[in-house]
């Protein structure tokens, strides 16, 4: 347990090296929220509802999605590929701690850091400057449960993507592809309510929706009904199970193929 804690601490401390990072992260995210605010204001153009969402709801959705994108930005793929390319992964393999758990804990540490330098500033800016009124009720409970699931899901996905660097020896392109697919398929930029029906059907059978849309839906709408809430959380758990199995298989396969130059 102590070992895990120190990895979490490592992940946190790694990020505190660059003080400029914190400042720029806050400023860029606030800039982004300003863009988002004006964009949606122009889209609503004085209307109360567009695609059954009010302007306040859309602003809750967008500020929370920006906050979550920042929260989940752990650069896990880069971490894995760097360790592979420089060979320090050898040291991780001989440690009595599982590599995936090590990566996961490090990711949690980074997320704790992100929480203070992205998530919190974005939410505070939205609440106090953009005057977004968050819906606070029993939905917050479901939001937190689904957020925890989303954190786990996101970590597993990042780990699987990171493993691809074992085969391609490059990670930048793969990471960008993952980011774009998630941003479109998990409806980060535009809520799922706006999507055409046929695209929505495709998104429903993919795991990406469970990372962002599920918690965001709980946050923006507190009248979705108990049944919907339970089903969505069950879907998240299903994907956590499925992807965990997949990640273990990929992990075994990748490590069997590892080739070293003796360095």
């Amino acid at each position: 347990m102590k070992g895990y804690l120190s990895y979490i601490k490592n992940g946190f401390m790694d990020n505190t090296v660059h003080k400029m990072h914190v400042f720029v992260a806050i400023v860029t995210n606030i800039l982004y929220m300003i863009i988002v605010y004006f964009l949606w204001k122009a889209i609503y153009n004085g209307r109360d509802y567009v695609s059954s969402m009010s302007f306040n709801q859309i602003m809750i959705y967008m500020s929370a999605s920006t906050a979550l994108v920042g929260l989940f930005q752990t650069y896990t793929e880069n971490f894995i590929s760097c360790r592979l390319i420089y060979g320090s992964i050898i040291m991780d393999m001989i440690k009595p701690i599982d590599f995936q758990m090590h990566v996961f804990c490090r990711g949690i540490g980074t997320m704790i850091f992100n929480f203070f330098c992205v998530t919190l500033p974005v939410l505070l800016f939205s609440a106090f400057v953009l005057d977004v009124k968050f819906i606070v009720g029993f939905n917050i409970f479901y939001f937190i449960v689904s957020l925890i699931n989303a954190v786990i899901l996101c970590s597993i996905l990042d780990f699987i993507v990171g493993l691809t660097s074992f085969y391609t020896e490059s990670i930048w392109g793969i990471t960008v592809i993952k980011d774009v697919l998630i941003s479109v398929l998990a409806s980060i930029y535009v809520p799922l309510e706006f999507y055409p029906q046929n695209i929505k059907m495709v998104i429903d059978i993919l795991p990406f929706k469970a990372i962002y849309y599920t918690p965001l839906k709980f946050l923006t709408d507190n009248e979705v009904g108990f049944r919907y809430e339970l089903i969505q959380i069950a879907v998240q758990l299903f994907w956590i199970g499925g992807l965990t199995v997949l990640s273990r298989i990929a992990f075994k396969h990748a490590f069997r193929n590892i080739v070293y130059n003796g360095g």
Partner: protein
Amino acid sequence: MRKIDYYIRIYKLLSGQYLKIKMQYKADTFISTFAMALVGISGIFIYYIIFNSINDLANLSYYEVMLMYSLYLIITSPANILLSNMWNLKNHLLEGTFVKYLLRPVNTLFYFVFETFDIRGIVNMIIGIICFVYSALQLQLTLNAASVIFLLIMIISGSVITGNLTILGATTGFWIMNSHFVNMFVSKLLDFTKYPLSIYTIALRIFFTFILPIGYVAFYPADFIFNGGEFNIVYVISPALAVLFTVIMLKLWNFGIKRYSGTGS
């Protein structure tokens, strides 16, 4: 004249060298080119979804917005292709290898910029041109010859402004060492230009026109087309702003390399 020949020869040597490096990682080049194309297309896709629920965005139709976005892709491409080394400047500064550029008998900026190029950026230029033609056909645009020539000038000016901002972002590294976050900041700032300038408040619009002229990256060239190619003071000053920013960039770059003292190793 001999000097120009000399620089052309060096350019050929540098780009040949860099191509050889890149040929080593064919899979990587292929994957990341695909990734960049995906980024470009996703922007259009998001507009497609938004316009599923609305008819116009700040009085612009879907194809008008698409035309503007395609100009964004075209105008930001040269900076993405030519200035990829600006992201590496911080590594050279932190590790002290920047000295090598100062010791060469060529202009430092020239050598540094043309040492690398990001061929992958061309894919967004191509997507941009395809979208531009497609939306221009849908809008049934007609421009006279003078307007077309001026549109090209505006596109070049926009590219020069984008490039200068990118270099200026990296140049801060001479003072703060790790300029990565400033580069990130500049690229986030350019995100403002993916959307029509007319959605912002008047204060922001003035700021993005005269002080930090990123309005010229996509909106004003598009606006020029929508106004039927009629000239207007806001459009006409774009080459002047491009020149002004080039002068500022050169001054700061030269000031920066004078200040650079190496790491002492």
